[in-house]
């Protein structure tokens, strides 16, 4: 009796609204949830955590946090200054060379302006450069060229090429064909066509991306020193090894500061060119 009255009531006012599920097929939903759970259990189970060691380390963690409040820029001032200057020089040189090389490669990797063989070669270079991480390239180059900022400079240039050429090529591929065709119709040579038909369309984006890449290069230059490729990383590593947290904190603060300045500058410049 009551059962029927409830269903009549339901018919009158309708069912309570329920959020539609993200995945419609029920079995797939369950398989995904169970699979994720099984993976999580297996993964967390295989991670060995030495809680006693973690507990011991909390004091050092606290010491490090405290070091941020009183960073020591003075004791190792010379090391920090030299390391930072080396990092900055590496960043500048590598960005200039990397951007210069990535412009022709970016042009070659754009299907709408490059012939197929050139396109394939340029895409190949981009794929190799993107697949290898900076630190691994740095290890190989340090083995070949010896310790020092030259290896770091080459690493960053190489990484810049993959990043910038790919994005530049994508920008060129999605450009507006009409202005380029108009310039071509005036009888311009290939160089004039690129310079007046293509370049003005992609320049704002190229500038924005270049500045973003300079920012990334600086951040990466901070770790290349870990494998001997020059820059501030070596000083930072030494500071950690000696538990000199106040010096490490000082270096990290400088890095954060420079990155913030670069980010601010890139925001200003991008707002101006776009």
């Amino acid at each position, binding site marked *: 009796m009551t059962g029927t009255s409830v269903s009549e009531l339901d018919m009158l006012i309708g069912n309570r609204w329920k959020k539609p599920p*993200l995945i419609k097929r029920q079995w797939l939903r369950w398989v995904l949830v169970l699979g994720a759970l099984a*993976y999580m259990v297996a*993964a*967390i189970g*295989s*991670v*060995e*955590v*030495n809680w006693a*060691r*973690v507990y011991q*380390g*909390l004091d*050092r*963690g606290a010491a*490090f946090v405290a070091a941020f409040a009183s960073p020591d820029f003075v004791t190792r001032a010379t090391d920090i200054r030299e390391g930072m*200057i*080396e990092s900055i*020089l*590496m960043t*500048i*040189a590598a960005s*200039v060379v990397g951007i210069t090389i990535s412009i022709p490669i970016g042009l070659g990797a754009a299907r709408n302006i490059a012939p197929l063989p050139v396109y394939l070669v340029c895409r190949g270079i981009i794929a190799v450069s993107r*697949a*290898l*991480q900076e*630190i*691994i390239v740095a*290890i190989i180059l340090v*083995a*070949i*060229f*010896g310790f*020092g*900022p*030259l290896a770091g*400079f080459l690493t960053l240039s190489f990484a810049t090429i993959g990043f910038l050429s790919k994005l530049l090529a994508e920008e060129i591929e999605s450009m507006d064909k009409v202005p380029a065709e108009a310039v071509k119709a005036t009888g311009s040579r290939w160089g004039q066509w690129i310079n007046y038909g293509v370049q003005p369309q992609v320049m704002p984006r190229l500038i924005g991306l270049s500045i973003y890449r300079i920012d990334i290069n600086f*951040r*990466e230059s*901070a*770790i290349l020193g*870990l*494998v001997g490729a*020059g820059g501030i990383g070596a000083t*930072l*590593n030494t500071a*950690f090894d000696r*538990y000199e947290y106040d010096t*490490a904190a000082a270096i*990290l603060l400088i*890095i*954060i500061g420079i*990155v*913030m300045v670069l*980010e601010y500058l890139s925001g200003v410049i991008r707002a101006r060119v776009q």
Partner: protein
Amino acid sequence: MVTHTLADGTRKWDRRTTGQRLVHWFGWLIGVAVFVYAWNEISKVTTWFFVWDAPRIASDIFGRATPPRWSYMDQLWEPIWDTLNIATLGTIAALFMAVPVAFLAARNTTPSKLFIRPIALLIIVSTRSINSLIWALLLIAIIGPGVFAGIVAISIRSIGFCAKLLYEAIEEINEDQVEAITATGASRWQVMAFGIVPQIMPAFAGIAVFRWDINIRESTVLGLVGAGGIGLQLSASLNTLAWPQVTLILLVILVAVVIGEWVSAKVRGMII
């Protein structure tokens, strides 16, 4: 842009005025000078003898490194599993921390623009600007070497990245839907759950997979400083100059990176 008349009466178009051209060239001059200076400083501390010797060294290393030692693969499955776990668990932990930070940082959801938003932005900038290898170095000094340090390093590093993209997505939501939910008399949390979250869910899933892809890359090298994963084997092989093993590990890393990118592209294609 400017046009001027030539001696024979024809008008010629130029892109820049003389003043603009001067400024332009001066800018180039300074740029080139800075680059030359930077290059000189780098070349001063470079041992050029090694550089001229590089082709010989490179071919020597290549000769030692090939063919890869395939039998070493048996010892690599466990590090690969660890690497995958570092990336995945690190990403999940990062997302848990990034979501509240993003809501605190977005202009339209932050409780206080004056106090809480700058703090959230500071967390985003500082976690983003420090590489995961540096976080790993730091965490190893604090909690000791191992996979756990790697997971924590990856997760801290990813907070800033995820939170930044997420708060930008939150700022771009359609306010009408939020207003509609508010108009039904929903509480603050209900507005969040039914007005904001559904709108940012696709962006959130995209960011999560994108970051997971990056984290696969980063977790392969964390072992270089002792934070677990396949990088440990890489660093051990490098230290013992076991080049055939190095080649095999690099190949494995390359395959892992490519698979990660493929999976992330597939999943993002499905979501968006």
